[in-house]
């Protein structure tokens, strides 16, 4: 078998298990809420309209946004429960994904439930009253059995939606089959993307068929089919659960943002911890704002961030001190205000920088951002998804009076493609990006010092602050990764040919540490 495929398939049991658990729990919760609500809505037209409108409204919110919205909501609830009961509800991972998916699953169940219950033959209902059934007997013996096939069809639709949408749980920190898709898209590993898509599609198909069997059984009053479908569904869920029940050691949760360098470093940290005998879980592909909150809340234990990012976005300062001063002050502030430990710098910077194709820059005579400013009105800027909304961009614009003809946001991988194809002229590059050397890009100087430095630092969550074993395991990484080494590792993952996995790049880093 192809090595890259084998590497992805090794991840399948864990991802599939988490995906199944999440989807099954969300669907169960959705059914548990939507069915009684459908009953109520079918009985009372006054309830029906607002309930259906609310469910339809939820359906119009893009899945990813709905998942993301639950994070700040749960952070608030988490703070409240921490105050009231001394225990914080986890705001990241399973819970927000569960709630968002359950909400999402409700519309088809509600819609079919109401249709099934209000569409019954009035003569049959009159007969039910006429033979002397109470309201409850009428519901249990006549209305529910007759509406069951329509309700089951709704549950079936909800199941397929839930399984598909659950792939979006990855960015809020819940492992799912979406991990294949998000990390594959990031590192242009199409095999990973395909494995994720096919696995999710197959899972949806199988579940749909099993629920179809139950629906058929419900329509024909065939308990054998209903029980067979249920039995296989339950057995499958339990089988998927087994890998999750296996591990019982202390597990360190390592976070990573949504780009190759983060995947590599998260893998590197993970293997060091595993070698030290710890169990490790990864939450990859977290948003930049979400990830720090998650660390501070203890949802993740360790991750790598950058001083400039923390300085502006977390500490909220807009001055730009020298590199060492910023590291010192960040370390102090984090310990004092958030209980977060800045364990130390890895040795390289991943600073925001503006980059152009080297020959283009030469032709225009541009060497620094100051040189670029007069040409900007004729040029187009390509930025990653965050850059244009970050304070750094505002500072840069103000310092140099930059005013581009057009600005366009891209997924980082596609941003480089856009520069290469000439769709944009200038990009927001990262100084540790391997593609700078590989694509012969010129990084423009920052003579006014408008951009802060971005030292890569290892952060520990408050509850791991005094964890000596963890500190010892990670110590050899500090100061051991120069920017050239990081660029090489990044390039292994990001290049178009002879592409390697983040895991391979992490092994490469581990072998060259400190050189």
């Amino acid at each position: 078998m192809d090595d890259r495929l084998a590497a992805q398939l090794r991840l399948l049991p864990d991802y599939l298990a988490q995906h199944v658990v999440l989807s099954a729990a969300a669907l169960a919760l959705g059914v548990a809420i939507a069915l009684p609500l459908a009953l109520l809505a079918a009985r009372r037209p006054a309830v029906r309209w607002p309930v259906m409108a609310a469910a339809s409204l939820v359906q119009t919110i893009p899945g990813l946004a709905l998942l993301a919205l639950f994070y700040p909501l749960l952070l608030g609830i988490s703070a409240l429960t921490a105050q009231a009961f001394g225990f914080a509800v986890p705001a990241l991972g399973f819970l927000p994904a569960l709630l968002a998916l359950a909400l999402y699953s409700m519309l088809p169940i509600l819609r079919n439930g109401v249709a099934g219950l209000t569409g019954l033959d009035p003569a049959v209902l009159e007969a039910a009253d006429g033979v002397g059934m109470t309201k409850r007997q009428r519901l249990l013996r006549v209305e529910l059995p007759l509406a069951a096939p329509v309700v089951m069809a709704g549950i079936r639709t909800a199941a397929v939606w839930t399984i598909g949408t659950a792939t979006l749980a990855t960015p809020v920190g819940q492992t799912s089959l979406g991990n294949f898709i998000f990390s594959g898209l990031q590192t242009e590993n199409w095999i990973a993307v395909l494995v994720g898509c096919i696995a999710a599609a197959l899972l949806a198909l199988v579940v749909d068929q099993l629920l179809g069997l139950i629906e058929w059984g419900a329509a024909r009053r065939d308990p054998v089919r209903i029980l067979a479908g249920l039995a296989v569904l339950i057995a499958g869920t339990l089988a998927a659960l087994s890998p999750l029940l296996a591990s019982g050691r202390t597990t360190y949760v390592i976070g990573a943002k949504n780009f190759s360098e983060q995947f590599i470093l998260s893998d590197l940290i993970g293997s060091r911890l595993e070698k030290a005998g710890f169990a490790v879980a990864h939450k990859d592909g977290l948003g930049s704002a979400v990830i720090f909150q998650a660390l501070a809340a203890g949802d993740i234990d360790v991750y790598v961030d950058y001083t400039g990012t923390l300085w502006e976005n977390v500490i909220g300062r807009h001055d730009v001190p020298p590199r060492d001063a910023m590291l010192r002050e960040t370390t102090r502030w984090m310990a004092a205000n958030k209980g977060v430990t800045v364990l130390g710098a890895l040795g390289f910077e991943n600073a925001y920088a503006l980059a152009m194709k080297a020959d283009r820059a030469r032709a225009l005579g541009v060497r620094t951002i100051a040189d670029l400013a007069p040409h900007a009105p004729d040029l187009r800027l390509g930025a990653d998804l965050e850059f244009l909304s970050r304070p750094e961009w505002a500072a840069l614009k103000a310092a140099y009076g930059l005013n581009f003809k057009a600005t366009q946001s891209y997924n980082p991988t596609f941003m480089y493609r856009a520069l290469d194809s000439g769709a944009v002229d200038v990009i927001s590059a990262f100084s540790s990006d391997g593609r700078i050397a590989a694509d012969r890009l010129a990084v423009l100087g920052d003579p006014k010092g408008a951009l802060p430095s971005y030292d890569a630092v290892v952060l520990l969550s408050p509850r791991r602050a005094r964890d000596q074993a963890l500190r010892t395991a990670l110590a050899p990484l500090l100061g051991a990764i120069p920017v050239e080494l990081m660029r090489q590792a990044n390039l292994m993952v990001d290049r178009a040919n002879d592409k390697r996995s983040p895991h391979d790049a992490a092994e490469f880093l581990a072998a060259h540490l400190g050189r």
Partner: protein
Amino acid sequence: MAQPPLIEVDAVGKSFPRGGAALRDVSLAIGEGEFVALVGTSGAGKTTLLKTINRLVEPDRGRVVVGGEDVARLDPAVLRRRIGYVFQGIGLFPHMTVGENIGVTPRLLGWPKARIAQRVAELLALVDLPADHAGRLPDALSGGQRQRVGVARALAAGPKIMLMDEPFGALDPVTRDSLGTAYRTLHERLGLTTLMVTHDVQEAVLLAGRIVVLAGGRLIADGTPQALLADSRNPAVAALMAMPRRQAERVQALLANGEERHDG
């Protein structure tokens, strides 16, 4: 009458704010064993009156007494299990077999299984359906067979009273006639008290021992078929009762005509 009436409707009124046939101060007493037909044009309030007896309709005014008890004081479900109810829509439960449909009220009453099975077999024979139909679903039956099951279901728990709302209205004339006659026989054999709504005066005349005429929510005539056929004081009653007589005369004329032609 020596004994008190089995069903007593006393000054009952009902109005529907959003349409529906109203009742205005209707009183009616039905003795045990009577077969009463309720006739009248559409919207006269026949169905409304019938349904006040098993509380499918709650009257605004007046009261209904069944077997000496004011029905307003009874649990409607308990009341309905004592009264057979058959209506034009039939309303067989499509997810239950014929046997389960027939046995539904005994099951609600908590009869033991063996007794229910025995009762279902008896009733199938009573309404002239083959015993093997017990295991079929209602979908597999013809319209006439379905209403036989409807009648059997209404009789299952051994009610003394049968309320029938145009029970054979949706059937073809031949089936309708044979089912009507068959039911009349059951009524006699089982000693039932029957109140049957029909818009077919001929059916009323042929089956019932007493006809009650409603118009605009009021009771306008009440008597034996012969008495009402002979009565010409109330024009509305006369018009209603004229129809079967006219039809009978025309049929007779046709028959006589045919004989003449045959002779010629």
